[in-house]
């Protein structure tokens, strides 16, 4: 486990490593013209050689400069801490901790950019003046081909170019510089030794001597250089002050000064690499300082001893641990080289001692320990322990890491041991965490907290590190805010007129974080914190289920807070959008409004600074809830129609079933939209805004694949807490299939995002389940937002350009007309083509009217008989209300032109409105036979009023019978026979053939308030049509007598046909009735069929018209009488029909007989008479066989007597005989001789009973009574 990134050698040394106080601070500054990358390159090269062995350093020959001569400890080394910034902030600490002082200043110059070396001479002077406390000031000329001797001054050092020089050349240069530095150190040491007083960091010059006398009130009023006084850990009890005896004041003062100067010398030995001497000097100083209770310096010396021991342990030189630092009860360890655990324990023990000494120094105002020193001591110890822990013990790697900040190679450590060591470090860390940061300024607070965080990170405690970093951010926010307040106050002191807004922004801009700085620094820290708490910062389309929701919200608010005080506008935009993404539901309305206001301001400011592309996507992945095509009312949507018969019947022949319940229904989902080239199409995009603020969508457009198109780009504002439908137009620019895949939008402050409706591969593949613990679970708990929020396929077909027709005129006033029932009327529609380029070449009409619906509904009712159903279907399918008169093949509407179409309307009962659908298209090449065609439909509505005209009120049929009684009519002139004969004469029916006809009594009512002339035609034979004319007064009911020729040869066994499209299953009406018991009013199927076919036959021979020649304003009104209103019963059928087999009786001519009517004879008694029975077949069957029965009876007597004729008539033969094989249309004669013995009236009835293979056939009886009167 190696949480610390492997540091490369060239990175700066860890300033909090345990041996950091043993490094010489050297300030590097650019001199002359040096580009930034060049300068950084130079710094890197120097850092590579930051460690100089004393053995390599040439000692200074001057005798007064030998105090820190490298020869004293050739194994030792000097470590440079190269810095590129002066830490003037901690200057007050430089006496106590000499390593904070900048001892060397190196100007780095690029030789290639230097014109005149003499100019640099001036620079040297300036550097010396700026950094008087530094011991040496040199300018290093990089890439200088010159020899050192050619340079004007010894202050210039030459470094040959990288290629020309070996790696050692720079090291040699640094050795020389070190030599010079070490030669200067004795002067500094002498200066310290000569100084009267060496002050503590927090002491003031004037009160130095009265340090012990200060009151606590005074302590609070004084201001320390860093403004940092006060207590360290919260646990310190400030009230428990120790009063110090003031005896031997001067002696004490002297000893204290001596001890402090010894400690200073020891510091210098440590810096100069003379660690042995340093250890000895520290030890001496310690003894002196301990004696005078100078706790601060005492503790500092103790720390120095610890560092010396670690450095010596690293070098590998045996050393003696001073007695003063050993625990009192371990004399055995004296003079013995301590092995790793002991030394480590000892160091920890020493740190504890140091801290208690520091705490004790708190009681002495002016001598108290600065917060930063206290904290850094702890941090250095934790650093040492962390290095040891990670290296698996007090190994050389651990020591190298502690002294030289070398990276620690990975080692495997037993878990329990590792854990134990870590717990130990954590104890120290909590001590460091306990340092109060109230009085510490921002830089120190940051230094302390980052130190803690770094150690936590090293140990792999990333959550702890996140927690510390959050604390750091929280500490920084008010401090930065304060600093900015101060800056603003300073600006506001400038008179208002002198500063305009631009200038203000100009001024504040240089303190803003520029976008290029975002990668590093404090914003990287924010990203780091976010990552630990489970907020994915890299990917914007993922949501992590990892983490604690409340904590996440809080962290993001903290991040926004920091970005606001910096101010970093890009950061505000970024973190606000993240907050909306992850925790929108936790935010109150006010919070949301505040956030979005700041978001908007930050976005504007960032834009004004030149930031163009914002990296974050819009936070709500479910912004788009639906995308749908809007049916345009302006542009009629074309439909695809098959043209050839094969393709039109395809659906029927697709399988053995007429109805397939599994066939795909044309629902909304499967509906394919058709767009026309170059015509805009409207889409409805439903957007959601669940937030409390208005959502500003800058741009929105549709995206799709397939053929090319151009989409409108719209901008809109979505109101808060609304589902908002937005309308957007799209124009296809080429034909083919176009798939709308989603839409592209850019919300204010976010980057342009594409919302896709098609499922992505990631959404389809199931997530891989990996079990992870702890922070590793982050990777497996990333949930890709199921992008898209919904899946929908909006596929449209773009078809070639089509014409657009309009109804320009119609020859009906207000598109309405009035008709009488049965009347026909024509009108003209003038079509205009709106299209500029495309003519309409293929036009077809389709009519629907108001009767369709009621008739279709009537068909659904199941109690109706078959003939009624046929009647409804007849009216529905055959009796069309509208009809096109014009031949549509000739109609073409040119581009921008007009064309006429004539339509005829029939006055049909129930017609109130009609709809004409005009389908039109454009066929480019008439030679090509198209299989299908895209058509547009134009709909035209017409209002129709149909008034009743002539109605059939009823009908009846009367047979012509020879048996009519001779009744005189009222006026006594004519008998019914006369009237009948006259009538027959009128209609041209010979009396003898009268029984081939019957008479229809037709009742007609005129419902129209004007008289109407009615004509009824009846076809009496193939050539003759008899017309009955009558004028019917308004409101009157009139009976017309219409002769009808009786009907023969009808096959009534055929089922009643259906005009509707075939159904797979037809339910028989028989089954709906229980058994064979027919409900009253219903006929058996046979009867119904018979009635149906005879009525159909009857309607074929009848026709009717009416004419209104009086009231019509616009010409004559004429129309047809709706004769389908006729209803006939089975009884009527018996009248109309001619039986299949007709039995006729007559007498053979003889002298004894006399005919008195067609079927009435007068014969003489006791004479021989021959009865001729003729059987005629009209059957549709080939031949008929049966038994003929002749039944004579006495006329006008009751049946019991009437049949008793045995003694009255003698027959020669039998009265029942078979008659076989009568061909259709043939007549068979059967003669029977008889003699009548008794006078009277006799009646003969002949019947023919058909014999079929099964049981009883039909029985036919002679229609007329055959009567013989015997005189």
């Amino acid at each position: 486990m190696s949480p610390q990134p492997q540091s490369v050698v060239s990175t700066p040394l860890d300033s909090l490593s345990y041996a950091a106080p043993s490094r010489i601070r050297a300030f590097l500054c650019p001199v002359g013209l040096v580009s930034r990358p060049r300068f950084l390159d130079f710094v890197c090269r120097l850092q590579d050689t930051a460690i100089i062995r004393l053995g390599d350093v040439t000692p200074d020959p001057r005798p007064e400069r030998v105090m820190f001569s490298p020869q004293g400890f050739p194994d030792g080394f000097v470590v440079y801490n190269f810095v590129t910034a002066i830490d003037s902030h901690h200057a007050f600490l430089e006496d106590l901790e000499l390593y904070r002082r900048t001892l060397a200043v190196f100007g780095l110059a690029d030789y290639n950019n230097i014109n005149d070396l003499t100019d640099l001479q001036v620079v040297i002077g300036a550097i010396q003046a700026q950094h008087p406390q530094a011991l040496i000031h040199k300018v290093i000329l990089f890439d200088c081909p010159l020899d050192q001797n050619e340079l004007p001054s010894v202050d210039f050092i030459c470094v040959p170019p990288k290629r020309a020089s070996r790696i050692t050349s720079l090291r040699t240069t640094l050795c020389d510089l070190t030599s010079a530095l070490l030669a200067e150190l004795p002067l500094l040491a002498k200066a310290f030794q000569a100084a009267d007083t060496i002050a503590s960091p927090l002491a003031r010059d004037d009160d130095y001597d009265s340090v012990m006398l200060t009151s606590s009130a005074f302590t609070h009023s004084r201001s320390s250089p860093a403004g940092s006084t006060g207590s360290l850990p919260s646990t310190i009890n400030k009230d428990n002050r120790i009063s110090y005896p003031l005896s031997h004041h001067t002696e004490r003062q002297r000893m204290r000064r001596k001890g402090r100067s010894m400690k200073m010398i020891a510091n210098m030995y440590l810096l100069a690499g003379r660690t042995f001497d340093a250890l000895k000097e520290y030890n001496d100083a310690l003894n002196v300082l301990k004696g005078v209770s100078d706790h601060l310096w005492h503790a500092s010396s103790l720390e120095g001893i610890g560092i010396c021991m670690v450095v010596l342990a690293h070098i590998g030189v045996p050393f003696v641990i001073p007695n003063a630092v050993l625990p009192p009860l371990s004399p055995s360890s004296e003079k013995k080289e301590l092995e790793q655990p002991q030394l480590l324990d000892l160091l920890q023990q020493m740190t504890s001692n140091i801290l208690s000494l520091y705490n004790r120094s708190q009681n002495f105002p002016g001598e108290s320990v600065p917060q930063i020193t206290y904290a850094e001591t702890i941090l250095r110890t934790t650093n040492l322990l962390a290095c040891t822990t990670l290296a698996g013990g007090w190994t050389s790697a651990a020591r190298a890491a502690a002294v030289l900040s070398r990276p620690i190679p990975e080692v495997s450590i037993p878990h329990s041991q590792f854990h134990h060591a870590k717990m130990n470090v954590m104890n120290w860390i909590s001590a460091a965490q306990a340092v109060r940061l109230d009085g510490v300024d921002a830089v120190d607070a940051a230094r302390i907290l980052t130190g803690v965080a770094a150690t936590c990170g090293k140990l792999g405690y990333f959550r702890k590190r996140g927690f510390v970093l959050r604390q750091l951010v929280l500490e920084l926010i008010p401090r930065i805010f304060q600093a900015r307040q101060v800056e603003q106050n300073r600006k506001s002191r400038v008179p208002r007129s002198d500063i305009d807004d631009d200038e203000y922004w100009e001024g504040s801009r240089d303190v803003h974080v520029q976008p290029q700085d975002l990668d590093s620094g404090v914003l990287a820290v924010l990203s780091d914190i976010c990552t630990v708490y489970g907020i994915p910062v890299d990917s914007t389309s993922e949501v992590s289920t990892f983490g604690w929701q409340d904590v996440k919200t809080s962290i993001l608010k903290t991040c926004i807070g920091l970005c606001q005080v910096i101010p970093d506008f890009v950061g505000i935009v970024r973190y606000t959008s993240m907050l909306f993404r992850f925790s929108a539901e936790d935010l109150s309305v006010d919070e949301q409004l505040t956030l979005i206001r700041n978001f908007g301001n930050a976005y504007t400011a960032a834009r004004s600074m030149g930031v163009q592309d914002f990296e974050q996507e819009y936070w709500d992945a479910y912004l788009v809830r639906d995308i749908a095509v809007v049916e345009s009312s302006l542009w009629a949507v074309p439909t695809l129609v098959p043209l050839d018969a094969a393709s039109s019947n395809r659906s029927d022949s697709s399988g053995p079933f007429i109805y397939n319940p599994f066939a795909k229904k044309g629902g909304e989902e499967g509906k394919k939209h058709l767009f026309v080239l170059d015509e805009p199409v409207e889409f409805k995009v439903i957007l959601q805004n669940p937030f409390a603020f208005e959502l500003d969508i800058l741009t929105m457009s549709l995206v799709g694949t397939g053929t090319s198109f151009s989409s409108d780009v719209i901008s809109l504002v979505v109101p808060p807490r609304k589902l908002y439908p937005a309308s957007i137009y799209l124009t296809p620019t080429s034909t083919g299939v176009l798939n709308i895949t989603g839409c592209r939008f850019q919300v204010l402050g976010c980057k342009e995002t594409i919302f896709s409706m098609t499922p992505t591969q990631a959404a389809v593949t199931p997530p891989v389940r990996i079990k992870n613990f702890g922070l590793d679970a982050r990777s497996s708990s990333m949930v890709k937002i199921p992008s898209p929020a919904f899946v929908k396929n909006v596929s449209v077909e773009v078809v070639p350009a089509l014409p657009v027709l309009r109804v320009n005129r119609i020859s009906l006033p207000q598109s309405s007309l009035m008709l009488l029932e049965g009347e026909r009327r024509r009108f003209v529609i003038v079509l205009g083509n709106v299209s500029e380029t495309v003519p309409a070449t293929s036009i077809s009409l389709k009519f629907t009217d108001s009767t369709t619906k009621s008739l279709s509904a009537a068909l659904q009712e199941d109690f109706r008989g078959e003939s009624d159903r046929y009647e409804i279907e007849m009216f529905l399918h055959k009796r069309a209300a509208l009809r096109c008169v014009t031949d549509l093949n000739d109609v073409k509407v040119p581009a921008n032109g007009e064309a006429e179409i004539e339509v005829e309307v029939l006055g049909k009962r129930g017609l109130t409105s009609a709809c004409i659908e005009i389908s039109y298209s454009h066929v480019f090449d008439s030679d090509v036979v198209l299989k299908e065609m895209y058509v547009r439909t134009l709909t035209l509505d017409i209002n129709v009023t149909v008034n009743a005209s002539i109605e059939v009120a009823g009908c009846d049929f009367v047979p012509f019978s020879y048996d009519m009684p001779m009744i005189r009519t009222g006026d006594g002139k004519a008998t019914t026979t006369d009237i009948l004969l006259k009538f027959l004469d009128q209609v041209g029916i010979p009396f003898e053939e009268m029984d081939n006809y019957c008479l229809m009594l037709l009742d007609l009512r005129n419902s129209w308030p004007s008289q109407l002339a009615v004509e009824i035609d009846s076809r009496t034979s193939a050539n003759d049509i008899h017309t009955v004319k009558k004028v019917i007064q308004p409101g009157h009911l009139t009976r017309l007598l219409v002769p009808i020729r009786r009907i023969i040869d009808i096959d009534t066994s055929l089922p009643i046909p259906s005009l509707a499209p075939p159904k797979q299953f037809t339910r028989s009406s028989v089954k709906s009735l229980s058994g064979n018991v027919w409900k009253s009013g219903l006929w058996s199927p046979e009867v119904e069929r018979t009635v149906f076919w005879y009525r159909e036959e009857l309607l074929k021979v009848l026709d009717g018209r009416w004419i209104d020649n009086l009231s019509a304003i616009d010409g004559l009104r004429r129309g047809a009488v709706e004769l389908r209103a006729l209803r006939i019963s089975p009884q009527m059928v018996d009248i109309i029909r001619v039986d299949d087999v007709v039995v006729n009786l007559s007498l053979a001519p003889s002298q004894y007989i006399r005919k008195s009517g067609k079927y009435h004879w007068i014969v003489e008694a006791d004479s021989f008479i021959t009865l001729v029975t003729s059987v005629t077949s009209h059957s549709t069957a080939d031949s008929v066989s049966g038994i003929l029965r002749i039944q004579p009876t006495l006329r006008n007597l009751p049946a019991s007597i009437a049949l008793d004729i045995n003694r009255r008539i003698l027959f020669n033969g039998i009265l029942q005989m078979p008659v076989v094989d009568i061909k259709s249309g043939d007549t068979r004669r059967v003669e029977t001789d008889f003699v009548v013995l008794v006078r009277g009236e006799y009646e003969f009835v002949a019947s023919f009973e058909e014999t079929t293979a099964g049981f009883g056939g039909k029985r036919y009886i002679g229609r007329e009574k055959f009567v013989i009167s015997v005189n």
Partner: protein
Amino acid sequence: MSFYLAIIGTKDNAVYDLEFGTYRQGGDGKPKFSADMKQLCPFIVHSSLDIVEEMQWNTNVMHLKVIDKFYNYLISSYMTAGNIKFLLLHETRADDVIRQFFVDLYDLYVKTLMSPFYSVDQPITSAVFDQRVKMLAKKYL
């Protein structure tokens, strides 16, 4: 004395959290955290998860005792078999009592887990659970 209890799921997510006070020494069961501390509690508890995760491999008992501290506050932890962490922020050491509290809490948690309408890592919103935890707190702490 005030306590802060958090049940943390396998993904660092809070399944349940509760602030409460002691009923002993005349306490009324109400938490007495300062406003700052109230905000900080989840963060403190969250930051000790690192140590919980390390501790769990070093012991075979579920009760990990006090694992972390922050200023004067101590954090005790209990690790369930399903990698669910109970963390209690408290002020004084009382390992035995806290162990009993955790064991009973585990009992409650397992009962919740057995509900067919509850899945691991889902926040516990049951009012009954809340009430029983408060009763446990009253009983032990």
